């Protein structure tokens, strides 16, 4: 079953074709890696998928929570999140001056079932819901082993934990598709290994479809079932990690032109 599909997805910034005619099809439960050299358009693809940029051409179809396909071309980012597709950011965008718990609580926003008036006057619905929300958020933090830091300010977390918190916050929106933009950036090898296990674990536990952008090839080759390679905004390869590793076009994109007839 396809949960995410792009048809001829393109975006132009002035004269620059940042992404051209991208056709992606992601199946339910897949873990897909999106790789490519710097400036290949990976994050731009994410920004289009989540409504930050409007594509110049093409369509994006996303399966919503009721398994209906929706064209998300004209939707705002918050509406796309409501359909069940959440993301993290390459340059961490946490709510720095708020506590770790509040960050997750904000991610939980879509599941707040009381009205602001109930909050202002502290009616019974407020207490019931806030208690449930806090429990759910702490539960999520526990998975990533940062529950004990719930009351710290997000900006005071070490870098690796900030990345984790971004994932927790995205999970709090209860997505079925999760887009991770360089989740391992800035992590040491040990942390990266732990992160790989975590990604596998949350995929099983929350029945997620995951697309991730990553430069750490060990991570990408290690957990992705399928890899899509972008270069200059075009898809140059798509296949299993083994196929990609030996694809001449990919090698060329990363390492430059091969010396012909190595003398």
């Amino acid at each position, binding site marked *: 079953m396809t949960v995410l599909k792009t048809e001829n997805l393109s975006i132009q910034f002035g004269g620059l074709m940042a992404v051209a005619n991208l056709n992606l099809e992601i199946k339910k439960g897949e873990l897909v890696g999106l790789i490519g050299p710097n400036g290949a358009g990976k994050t731009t693809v994410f920004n289009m998928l989540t409504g930050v940029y409007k594509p110049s051409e093409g369509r994006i179809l996303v399966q919503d929570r009721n398994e209906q396909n929706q064209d998300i071309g004209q939707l705002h980012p*918050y509406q796309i*999140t*409501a359909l069940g597709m959440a993301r993290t950011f390459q340059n961490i965008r*946490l709510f720095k001056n708020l506590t770790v718990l509040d960050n997750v*609580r904000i991610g939980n926003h879509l599941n707040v079932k*009381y009205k602001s008036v109930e*909050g*202002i006057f502290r009616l019974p619905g*407020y207490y019931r819901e806030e208690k449930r929300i806090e429990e759910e958020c702490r539960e999520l933090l526990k998975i990533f082993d940062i529950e004990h830091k719930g009351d710290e300010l997000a900006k005071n977390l070490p870098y690796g934990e900030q990345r984790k918190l971004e994932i927790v916050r995205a999970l709090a*929106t209860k997505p079925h598709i999760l887009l991770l933009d360089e989740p391992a950036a800035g992590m040491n090898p040990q942390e990266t290994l732990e992160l790989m296990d975590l990604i596998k674990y949350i995929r099983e536990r929350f029945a997620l479809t995951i697309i991730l952008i990553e430069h750490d090839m060990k991570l990408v080759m290690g957990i992705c079932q399928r890899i899509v390679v972008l270069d200059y905004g075009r898809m140059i390869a798509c296949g299993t990690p083994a196929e990609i590793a030996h694809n001449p076009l990919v090698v060329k994109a990363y390492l430059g032109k091969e010396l012909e007839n190595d003398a």
Partner: protein
Amino acid sequence: MSKKMNTVVSVLIVASILIILNVLVMLRVIDEYASQVLTIAGINVIIALGLNLISGFTGQLALGHAGFMAVGAYTTAALMMKLHLPTLVAVFGGALMSAFFGFLIGLPTLRLRGDYLAIVTLGFGEIIRVLMINLPELTGGPAGLKGIPTFTTNFFWRPVLSFALVYLTMTLVVVLLNNLLNSSHGAAIISIREDEIAANAMGINVFYYKIFAFTLSAFIGGLGGALYAPFFGYLSPNMFNFQKSVEFLIIVVLGGMGNLTGTVVAGIGLTYLQEILRFLKDYRLVIYPIILIIVMIFQPSGIMGLFGNKEFSLTRFVGKLAGKQLSGEQSSDKAGEVQ
């Protein structure tokens, strides 16, 4: 002592402080002059709280709260003088009218990211003032509007009633704003200040919450103005000039953007300071900017930044006195409320 007990005790403390202050005003221990200054301070605090909601908590700079104050004040005056509505109904009407204006301004401007709101509210404040000058049949024109019915005509009760109403309203505004900001909806509002793009990606309808916060902010600003009309009994367009808007902004900045306690403390402190400095005549207007410059250099997060930008929580304070630590308990009351 349970959390509930703490809340009950806190409510009792706040109520008794309010009553004691009122009795002091009644017995003229706080003389008429001082109580009048305190009442004006209370009104300033209310409006600054409204401004803090949109500028401090939502992160959208607004420069026209004197305009909302004017809309609230003149509407209340009109409702009382032309339609002869009871005072409290008129006050509520004034605040509602101001909220309506806030909604209208917010609708086109809050869709945009950046400082557009500051520019538009700046214009709005001036437009309102000029309108008030040029609508003499409704506002008395540049000479001002005289003869607005006051809360009571009784010479003895007038300061007491003004004081009581203003401070009761202020307490309510503080408590209800604090409730809102501690709820998940409040967290959504604050997340817009922190990172609009991330807030959007978390499923928060940024535009909706901006409009919500701005309309509420205009409501509170109008409420302050609405109380001002029957308290003072006289309105003139020049009371609501740009300088007045800046005064509110200074209160918010000095107290700490995004801190309710700070606004209450700074609001009362600055209003009092202005009275103390009266002997300096026009030079006192120099003091304000100097204070602002000093704060910006040495304490950019405002006075509450000195205390880690935490809100003063009466319930937490009571809990500590009772010898029990309440971990992270957010309170429903602030003692800043009543100086």
